[in-house]
């Protein structure tokens, strides 16, 4: 009896084993299908992007983000890479870190950027993103990108030095000039300027022109209004030039570069620096002997239609050829408040929508995040994103010419007109 049972047991075990093997081999096809989404840059820095990708993949079985870090090098280089890749349908499904202005327009012109207007409505994003930011990602009434984070540009200042000199953060440009005068009288430099090596020149001059001319300056940058006709731009340039001519800035701004100029700030020689949130981590890691505060640069022209300097730091786009449902899921996840708070906490990136700013973050993060969150509906444009890279590069040199006394502000506008119109004629 026992022997016949053991005889039966063997074939039974064999059948069971075969069944198990069969089931295992069928398992992948029975399991839920995974959609791969190719992402190039999520709009943060590379290391943080990878952390986010891993977090997403751990939490989702149906979608797997494949992250490729191909966006290395200059901004203009990256824009070009992405444009060509998308034109050839070889680009990413989801792309972060997209600039508004000329860059977004060039990408949309490829015909491969998905119109997100309906997605905005269905996901409720339309209620979360303020109109001033929506306008920046819209082309001819259709929305093509999602503002992801914001760069609020303003004056970082040495709070201890301000207290010692009995100064308060100014609210008007006249007050700001009075502060600079007081700082100068105290033997310190008010405005930190390091223009050797390029980009800060065009950026700073742009900030002053924008702060004076507002949206008229955007028309100039877009090529719809001639540079020399913008009188408010001229007033902005003169205010910028005064930073040097009146002795408010550090001497020899053309002899030092951006990083060297920041050293003056950290050493307490100059007590204010115009900068963006990318400066926060650097400021904290430099650990200066003083507390750093922040205020918005008061507009040169109080009647201008902009309120604060800065703009959308980066935005997300979805490719026309991407698996749409999966791509939208990724984008929705990236726009959650939870992730925005995490990015603020981890890397001091400010979201492009209002969030409840956590109080347990470093004070400088907290101050800027709170002020930005409170002003999210007033944030302006990043003017320089409207210039083609070549013209922006020329602008750096031309602004150096004005600061070095080789050009007057009027000459600067004429030079810019010449270089900009040459470029537009050639392209």
């Amino acid at each position, binding site marked *: 009896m026992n022997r016949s049972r053991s005889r039966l047991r063997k074939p039974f075990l064999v059948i069971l084993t075969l069944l198990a093997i069969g089931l295992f081999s069928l398992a992948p096809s029975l399991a839920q299908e995974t959609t791969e989404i190719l992402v190039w840059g999520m709009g943060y820095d590379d290391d943080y992007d990878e952390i986010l990708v891993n977090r997403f993949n751990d939490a989702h079985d149906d979608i797997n983000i494949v992250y490729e870090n191909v966006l290395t090098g200059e901004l203009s280089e990256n824009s070009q890479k992405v444009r060509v890749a998308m034109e050839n349908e070889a680009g990413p499904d989801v792309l972060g870190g997209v600039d508004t202005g000329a860059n977004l327009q060039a990408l949309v012109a490829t015909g491969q950027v998905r119109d997100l207007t309906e997605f905005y409505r269905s996901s409720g994003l339309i209620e979360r993103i303020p109109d001033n930011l929506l306008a920046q990602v819209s082309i001819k009434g259709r929305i093509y990108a999602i503002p992801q984070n914001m760069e609020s540009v303003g004056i970082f200042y040495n709070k201890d030095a301000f207290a010692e000199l009995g100064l308060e953060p100014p609210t008007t440009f006249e007050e700001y000039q009075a502060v600079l005068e007081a700082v100068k009288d105290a033997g310190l430099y008010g405005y930190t300027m390091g223009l050797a090596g390029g980009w800060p020149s065009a950026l700073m001059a742009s900030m002053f022109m924008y702060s004076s001319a507002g949206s008229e300056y955007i028309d100039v940058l877009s090529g719809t209004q001639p540079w020399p006709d913008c009188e408010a731009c001229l007033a902005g340039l003169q205010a910028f030039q005064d930073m040097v001519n009146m002795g408010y800035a550090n001497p020899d701004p*053309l002899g030092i570069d951006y990083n*060297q100029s920041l050293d003056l700030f950290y050493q307490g020689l100059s007590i204010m620096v115009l900068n963006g949130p990318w400066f926060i981590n650097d400021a904290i890691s430099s650990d200066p002997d003083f507390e750093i505060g922040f205020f918005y640069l008061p507009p040169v022209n109080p009647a201008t239609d902009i309120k604060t300097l800065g703009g959308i730091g980066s935005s997300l786009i979805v490719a026309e050829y991407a698996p749409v449902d999966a791509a939208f899921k990724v984008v929705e996840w990236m726009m959650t408040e939870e992730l925005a708070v995490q990015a603020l906490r981890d890397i001091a990136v400010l979201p492009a929508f209002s969030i409840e700013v956590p109080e347990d973050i470093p004070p400088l993060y907290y101050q800027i995040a709170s002020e930005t969150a409170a002003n999210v509906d007033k944030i302006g444009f990043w003017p320089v994103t409207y210039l083609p890279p070549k013209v922006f590069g020329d602008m750096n040199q031309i602004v150096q010419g004005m600061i070095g006394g080789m050009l007057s502000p009027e000459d600067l506008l004429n030079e810019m007109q010449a270089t900009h119109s040459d470029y537009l004629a050639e392209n």
Partner: protein
Amino acid sequence: MTLLSGQTARTAGIRPRLDLMPYLFILPAVAIYVVFNLGPVLASFVFSFFKWDLLSPTAEFTGLSHYTFILNDDRFWNALGHNFIFLGLAVVIPVWIGLLLAVFIYEIRRGRVFFRAALFLPAIFSGVVIAYVWKWIYHPFAGVLNPALELVGLGAFTQSWLGDHKIALYSTFIAYAWATFGYSMVIFLAGLQDIPTDIIDAARVDGANFRQKLFRIIIPSLYDVFTFVVTLRIFTAMGIFGVIFILTGGGPFYSSDVIDIYVFRMIGNFEMGWATAAATVNAVIVVCISTGFIKWREWRSWSS
């Protein structure tokens, strides 16, 4: 046997064998040269006739329009002018400093190895390192140059070395000269070793002073070495990039701009047609200058 009697291999019906071995030996070097030197040069020349952004699969033929554009561009001529200033200085200052230091090392009896190593040291650093060193030397607040000038009573010469458009180019040249004189020195030193010592000893016995030895014996004996060193300086001065790019970026307001920075700016903007046209024009100028110089030196050598 028959060959020994005066018949050639052909008349004797023997086919000469083509010995491929030498060609096989030089093949890797030729392949590397073609792929990495000749190929890119030719490609660059071809690109100069096309409007192409480096990445697009298509390119539009534009004929000579890029050449017309750059030859009408004031900034191209401005940059080229700076290259010529650099060239004029480069073929004189680092060459003569190198020569005098080589003679100094050749003449001294003690510390020859130390001085040779110490003076050659700048030549082994990369241009980037040298540029960053000089960036800090020139720094208006933390640099050592201005305080050093004040210390020795030359306070009137303190400058904004990189921020003043009138001197920025010359400030970059100082960094370049510092980086290159050691190389010239070593080549001259090698040339000096080839001068027969009995000639110099005979001159010494005849009572020749240092100036006479230098101009009557040493420099004429180093004629070919001079040609080589100056030709080398022509190439480096016309292709100067790293030092200027890091020190001034070509500024302020293009006052230290040179052709390679002009080209780099175009490449950065993906204007490959303009960039390659400018690079081609520069290459033609360099070839003309260096060939002209070498031919002139040969003619002078023969005629004398």
